[in-house]
């Protein structure tokens, strides 16, 4: 088991390295750098000015060197201009040669400086992740129990009326992406034309003061899309368990149906959905980006959109590291959890 986790950890590290390098490569292509220079410097810079601007800040070094600097295995780029201004990859506005450290990379715990928000990337990501974590927590609180309930109820009697109506419900939710359900919810529950002003159409205030009124719609929108899939998986696993021989034996012994479902079937039926819920995290991440844009909730997804739209390289890299980390860790947890929940599987 220990060896297994160690190997998975190695693969994880390799994946993270590859992915960050891809992001690094794409954001450091020349047209992207040109855009960065023009947004940071001056929109009407000539081609030569763009080139000097980039050269002064070390953007024109080979990609591998820049990647090494970002990682913190190579010393940061520095340059002192003729007029005495000190520039480099490790500098912050106002810092001098003495206050700047030689290495500044992820290994040193320095995530860089965001060119859009004019702040340390570490603090931005931390703050935005806090907002999104709060959102995700409530999404999971709403989504997981209701999805499991729908799946178990649908799967316990295959082909019954309850099964068919709940299955139709879960198919409809999987067919409704967040930007469709969100728009429909906003139209029905918040607009002045329909008249049901039950909720607020934006979640901007929810960052400081979350209430049911301004926070429920974003949570519901994300939860619904993920719910259908988990419910269908739970249903499939539940129907499989309900046709197993030990359930038949229990029925023949005369155990009541409620007892069969609660005591015999449920535990075995919930192994597969556990994996599915864990693997659902990458999709939730997508939903978060859409919903945070739609409801104007300034979280992690919102920061991603801002960073990508303005080619904020350092912030974008930090965001991709975080999201890749989330994806890989949930995969690892789902694998390990599966082994613990299902005693028939042993990893040698």
């Amino acid at each position, binding site marked *: 088991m220990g060896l297994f986790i160690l190997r998975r950890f190695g*693969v994880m590290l*390799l*994946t993270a390295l*590859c*992915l960050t390098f891809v*992001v690094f490569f*794409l*954001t450091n*292509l*020349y*047209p*992207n750098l*040109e*855009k960065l220079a023009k947004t940071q410097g001056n929109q009407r810079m000539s081609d030569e000015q763009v080139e000097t601007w980039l050269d002064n800040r070390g953007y024109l070094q080979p990609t591998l060197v820049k990647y090494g600097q970002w990682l913190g295995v190579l010393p940061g780029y520095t340059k002192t201009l003729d007029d005495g201004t000190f520039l480099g990859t490790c500098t912050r506005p106002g810092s001098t040669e003495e206050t700047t450290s030689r290495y500044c990379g992820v290994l040193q715990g320095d995530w860089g400086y965001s060119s859009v928000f004019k702040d340390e990337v570490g603090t931005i990501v931390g703050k935005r992740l806090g907002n999104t974590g709060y959102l995700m927590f409530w999404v999971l609180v709403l989504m997981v129990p209701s999805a499991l309930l729908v799946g178990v109820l649908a799967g316990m*009697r295959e082909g*019954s*009326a*309850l099964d068919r*109506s709940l299955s139709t419900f879960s*198919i*409809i939710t*999987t*067919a*409704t*992406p967040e*930007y*469709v359900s969100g*728009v*429909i919810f*906003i*139209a029905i529950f*918040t*607009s*002045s*034309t*329909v008249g049901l002003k039950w909720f607020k*159409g934006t979640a901007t205030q929810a960052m400081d003061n979350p209430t049911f009124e301004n926070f429920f719609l974003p949570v519901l929108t994300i939860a619904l899309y993920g719910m259908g899939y988990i419910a269908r998986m739970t249903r499939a696993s539940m129907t499989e368990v309900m046709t197993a021989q030990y359930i038949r034996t229990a029925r023949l012994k005369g155990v009541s149906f409620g007892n069969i479902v609660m005591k015999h079937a449920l535990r075995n039926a919930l192994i597969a959905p556990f994996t599915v819920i864990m693997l659902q995290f*990458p999709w939730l*991440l*997508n939903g978060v*980006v*859409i919903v945070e*844009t*739609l409801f104007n909730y300034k979280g992690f*997804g919102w920061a*991603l*959109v801002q960073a*990508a*739209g303005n*080619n904020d390289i350092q912030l*974008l890299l930090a*965001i*991709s590291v975080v*999201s*890749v980390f989330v*994806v*890989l860790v949930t995969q690892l947890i789902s694998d390990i959890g599966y082994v613990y929940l299902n005693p028939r599987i042993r990893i040698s």
Partner: protein
Amino acid sequence: MEPLSWTGSIAILNPILMIALAALVVSIVVWIIGSIVLPEVPLSLNADGTLSSGTGLRGLTQSALRYSFFACVVLALAYIVLGILMGTSAGIVGAISQQFLPVWLSLIILFAMSIAFKRRLGLYGKLFDSPIGMIGFGLVMFWVFTGIFGALDLIITHDPLSQVSGMKNKVPGTPLQNPEDGEYAWYLLGGDNLARDVFSRMVKGAWIVVQIAPLATMFAFMVGITLGLPAGYYGGRLDTFLSFLANLILAFPVILLFYLLVTPEIVATGVPNYMAAVLFIFPILFIGVLLNSRYYTRPNFRTPLLIGVLGIALWLYLSLISTDGYIINTDDYGIWGLPTYLDLFDIPGGILVVFVSVVFVNSPTVFRIVRGLALDIKTRDYVAAAQTRGEGPWYIMLWEILPNARGPLIVDFCLRIGYTTILLGTLGFFGLGLPPESPDWGSTINEGRKLLSIYLHPALPPAFALLSLVLGLNLLADGLREESLKD
């Protein structure tokens, strides 16, 4: 011109429809509760050994549900038929159903033909045995026909890009202020914030989806199959390497990937063209290996066949990836491609990058599915038999394993078209790739959402259109799964 109301002179039907819908909702609830509360229908054993069941209260709830459902369907048909006959005097509903006349006709012909010959049509014909599958197929074909006829300018009432003065944010059914001769006198579903016709934009948006989504899914399947079969069949290092690559792409959040790939700056560097050149070669490889592995024992037949098929495929490939005589054309350098006079079609850079990134995102999942199926099927006896016969590995993969994996693959194909539609909508929603005035559903939803608290009508039609298409594809996949399991 008077503004149109929703139902016009057939408004007498509205209360009846309300009653029918209320009855449907009540009977569904009663049906569900009844299935839990009411006792099972008693079975009685007859003297001749057969079982018979009484109807009981359960049967009653079921027939109530059936009748109220039929009432709703009949009423909906009545709206459509009356609308086709009466046109605008039956209000917006009538006018819209009249505009959709070619779609209704094609649907009727398609369904009549398919049901008449369903026993000779294989899996497709069996689809018409399952009500769920039929509903799904109907929804999908509705949008397919809408897309095709919309592209032929049969359904739309106005140009989706032209703005008419005085129609900004007008509610559905608003008449034009001074329509010219031959111009449709109303905005059936109102005008958007740039005074364009919402109805025509929705119809035109269907064409974009119908064009891109199935084709992109097909390319993703070609890539996934060509790589997944050897990975599953050979296993070993190849499998480890390809699986690592697939997991790498899958670990990327889709939106981050889109934001990195689908930007004008990336298009300018030619990265999408490189990706297109790599991804689009897989179908050629697939066809080439497929035919060669089958006919390599008959060189006289194989060689001309391969030359012909691969020649055409290569020509299509080259015209697909080359634009204006270049495969890659950046400011610094260019790679020569097919000369313009041989180039069959040009794809604008924006569409190409959307297409490529959607294929790129979908293919790893297909790869994983195909690999899993190949791992499972390669242990079967018929594979062992083929190996004993001395068949080559590619023959076994493509002509023994692949046909036997078709069931799950067809089902996944339907689901994946739906997922691709959602991805295209996501791209439009973030304003990536497609031009900003493009009438695709995602962009229209994105534009409409900004004024959603005051004007509902610009955002809702594309939202419901996308919802119904994806729902149709999911139902179709469900029906296909059910029917293919019956084999």
